[in-house]
């Protein structure tokens, strides 16, 4: 069987009628006991399982996913990767994630199609330009690449921008190392990497409850029976509060629907990522040729994986305002994911009052770009019992102490 992906194995399997490929990961059935359990088969759960095995040698691990891996927000997001944060803690963490992304295809031997095509954050008025130059300065001070461009320079770099806009483009922040990656490939690549190191990837396995004895985590009750382990990590995004409640834990998280949609595929016409929060939209073009368009949050609690029509209209209007040439393109699909929002838009990677139970949550509208670092830090916390230095600020206690890392207001973008 062929497991390694390379030019040579491609040629060999081509000559062999593609019959010798090993499945990317083993579809496992649960054992009665594991050294560690990770609940949630999104990018964060899968990366956690992978780094538990790879960085810490904990390979007797079960990854439990209620549906199919990557079927949550990880497979529903608009795949923008960037690290334009304001505060030192978040800048360091998200830039570490970006660096891991830069080497991830090699590390996983799986092409995640990471394309560093740049990420342009447009400013449409004087105040936005002041905020953007403040952002650029903060990024540079934090050692992150950033450029401030004036209106002419933006037009030189982005062909097709409206030349008679209602909301003029006065300039932009560009992060050249930003870009997009194939979301499914991130989930599948981590699953394959974890599985090869011994992790059981178990799909269609919903966690219903936790087994807790005298404040110690002992395992989970699932749709496939009881699975025991004294070490459980949870990364279930929009379902974080519902599931944590089963362990008697309240989280400062609200679940909202965030939507995106894609157009019909067309020839390459947009070679970078454009964010224009002022016009209510952001977009890029996928390698398939679809325009991938993201909207904003429906600002009421929701567990329905569908976005509202008003937001869809607003985001589409924003696209047409920016690029009149796209006005006749047709929508192909629209969907939403359930995102886990914290008050300060900064995630939570922490232990809980139940010993042996750890959570990673609050990734909200921007946790795809964080996946490698989120998995890295949750695995570190689960394996060592102490916070990774990059994630010490992402603690639950900040909501009591007041040490919020308020990116919700600082970097001026919804995350």
């Amino acid at each position, binding site marked *: 069987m062929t497991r390694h992906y390379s030019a040579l194995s491609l040629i060999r399997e081509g000559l062999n009628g593609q019959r010798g490929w090993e499945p990317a990961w083993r579809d496992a059935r649960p054992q009665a006991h594991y050294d560690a359990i990770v609940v949630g088969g999104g990018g964060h759960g899968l990366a956690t399982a992978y780094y538990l095995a790879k960085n810490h040698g904990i390979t007797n691990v079960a990854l439990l996913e209620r549906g199919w891996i990557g079927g949550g927000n990880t497979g529903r997001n608009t795949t923008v990767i960037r690290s334009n944060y304001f505060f030192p803690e978040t800048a360091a963490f998200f830039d570490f994630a970006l660096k891991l992304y830069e080497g991830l295809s090699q590390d996983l031997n799986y092409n995640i199609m990471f394309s560093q095509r740049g990420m342009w954050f447009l400013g449409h008025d004087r105040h936005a330009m002041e905020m953007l130059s403040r952002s650029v300065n903060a990024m540079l001070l934090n050692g992150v690449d950033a450029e401030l461009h004036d209106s002419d320079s933006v037009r030189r770099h982005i062909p097709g921008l409206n030349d008679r806009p209602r909301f003029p483009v006065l300039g932009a922040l560009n992060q050249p190392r930003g870009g997009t990656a194939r979301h499914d490939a991130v989930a599948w690549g981590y699953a394959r990497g974890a599985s090869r190191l011994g992790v059981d990837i178990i799909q269609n396995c919903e966690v219903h409850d936790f087994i807790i004895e005298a404040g110690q985590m002992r395992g989970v009750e699932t749709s496939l029976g009881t699975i025991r382990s004294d070490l459980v990590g949870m990364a279930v995004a929009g379902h974080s509060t*519902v599931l944590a409640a089963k362990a008697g834990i309240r989280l400062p998280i609200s679940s909202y629907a965030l939507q995106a949609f894609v157009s019909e595929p067309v020839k390459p016409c947009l070679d970078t990522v454009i964010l224009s929060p002022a016009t209510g939209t952001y977009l890029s073009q996928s390698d398939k040729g679809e325009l991938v368009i993201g909207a904003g949050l429906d*600002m*009421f*609690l929701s*567990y*329905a994986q569908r976005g*509202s029509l008003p937001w869809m209209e607003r985001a589409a209007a924003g696209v047409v305002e920016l690029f009149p040439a796209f006005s006749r393109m047709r929508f192909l699909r629209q969907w939403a994911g359930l995102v886990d929002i914290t008050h300060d838009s900064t995630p939570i990677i922490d232990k809980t009052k139940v010993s042996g139970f750890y959570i990673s949550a609050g990734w909200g509208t921007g946790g795809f770009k964080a996946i490698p670092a989120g998995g890295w830090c949750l695995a570190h916390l689960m394996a060592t019992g102490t916070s990774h230095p990059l994630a010490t600020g992402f603690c639950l206690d900040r909501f*009591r*102490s007041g040490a919020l890392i308020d990116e919700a207001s600082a970097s001026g973008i919804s995350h």
Partner: protein
Amino acid sequence: MFLIDCPYCGPRAETEFRCGGEAHIERPSPHGEVTDEAWSNYLFYRQNPKAEHRERWVHTAGCRRWFNVARDTVTHRIIAVYAMGETMPAAAGEPR
């Protein structure tokens, strides 16, 4: 798209309204005696049920008045609309 039955103006489109989050939250007091936990709870911890939720809405593009709504967060079905300061009518019954 929701149709929200403003108690003052009647049924109007969702775009005319804004949701103000969880209803019936009481500010802890007396001020000097509120613990950090209680204060944190008041500021940052909200109910987030995958079920019926009591929340406040305001008719921003209409009468600009606030009222309470009981809404299912999975189906988005509005179960009851009732005035600020009122408790949820016991027999909410039929959806509106």
